[in-house]
């Protein structure tokens, strides 16, 4: 996985590296759908394409969830840049997601 460095942009576009994310979901279950929508909105607003997101459906790939130590879905993993972070739930708590992504909230 490559880690590209960008020069810091204006406030709000605070992306300095490509953020690599993995979201584990359970098919079209309500919280899973909501988590995808919430995460996409956050990525659009804060990461502006400076990220890579892989969505893993545990109903289709249960083996991956077991192997990768996932306990519940929806579950978001930030894999890169280090340190890694994890948020569980439908990602409606934006502050918590931003903290995990290592991105400063525009409102603050």
């Amino acid at each position, binding site marked *: 996985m490559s880690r590209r460095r960008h020069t810091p942009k204006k406030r709000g576009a605070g992306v300095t590296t490509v953020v690599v994310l993995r979201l584990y979901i*359970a098919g*079209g*279950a*309500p919280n899973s759908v909501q988590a995808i929508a919430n995460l996409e909105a956050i990525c659009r607003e804060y990461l502006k394409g400076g990220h890579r997101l892989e969505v893993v459906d545990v109903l289709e790939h249960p083996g991956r969830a077991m192997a990768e130590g996932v*306990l519940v*879905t929806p579950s978001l993993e930030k894999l890169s840049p280090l340190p890694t972070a994890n948020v569980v739930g439908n990602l409606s708590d934006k502050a918590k997601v931003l903290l995990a992504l290592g991105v400063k909230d525009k409102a603050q």
Partner: protein
Amino acid sequence: MSLQNVLSRLPKGGPEQRAIEAGEIDAIIDRASSNVILLPAARRALRGLSSDARRGLSSDAPIANGVLAALPRKDYLALLDGLEPVALTYGTVLYEPGELIAHVFFPVDCLVSLLTAVEGHPATEVGMVGREGIVGITLALGMDVSSIRALVQGTGTAMRMNAARFRREFERSLPLQRGLYRYANAKLALARQTVACNQFHAVEPRLARWLLMTSDRLASDEFILTQRLLADILGVLRAAVSRAAGSLQQRRLIRYRRGKIRILDRQGLEAASCRCYTRIEA
């Protein structure tokens, strides 16, 4: 395995438990049982979804049941939202003779035995359905009452559809009708062959045939079967099963330990089985 047990295995007071309490979790991945367990709200929601892609049965995924796989894509997709995945556990009775058929089942990786009882004797197996077929073919033949007992012999999953929806789909889809008539004919041929087989062939070749058929339908060389059940299935005394299994084991064709059977030499077992095996498979 209860949901409570699974919940108790999550880290105490951890973010997972808090998210569950907040209703933000759809599924728990239970490593102890290697299962993905949907929480009730998610299960209900997934049942109600109409899009096949959204229910985790991706329309691109290989179709595991033979009857469904043989349908043209359009007909298969039309069926999908009426199908729900269910886990069937060993020993569950799906139908009793004389009972109204509420659902049909398309086994994915489970095995269902069809049994008929004669007064004063334990039920004898007259048919077996695995991933190649459907349980509840009677509905397609115009009857809504089961004439047999359908007993889950191998734990696994199946796709279930309620009887009313199945009847509608059956009337609507010509490929489904053709597929099921072909299947019914194959079942009839199998039943006829089984009658002759039970009449004339010895227990050992019949046991070998039955093990091969079970293995084909489960797509596995290992499965669990007690001697008592095998005796009921073959319609013989337990001692006879014990002798026959012992002989197959001595010839290193199978391993039979504490109810767990493993086929060690498939070709050898085919040679030991009666010729009904190949005929039935054809």
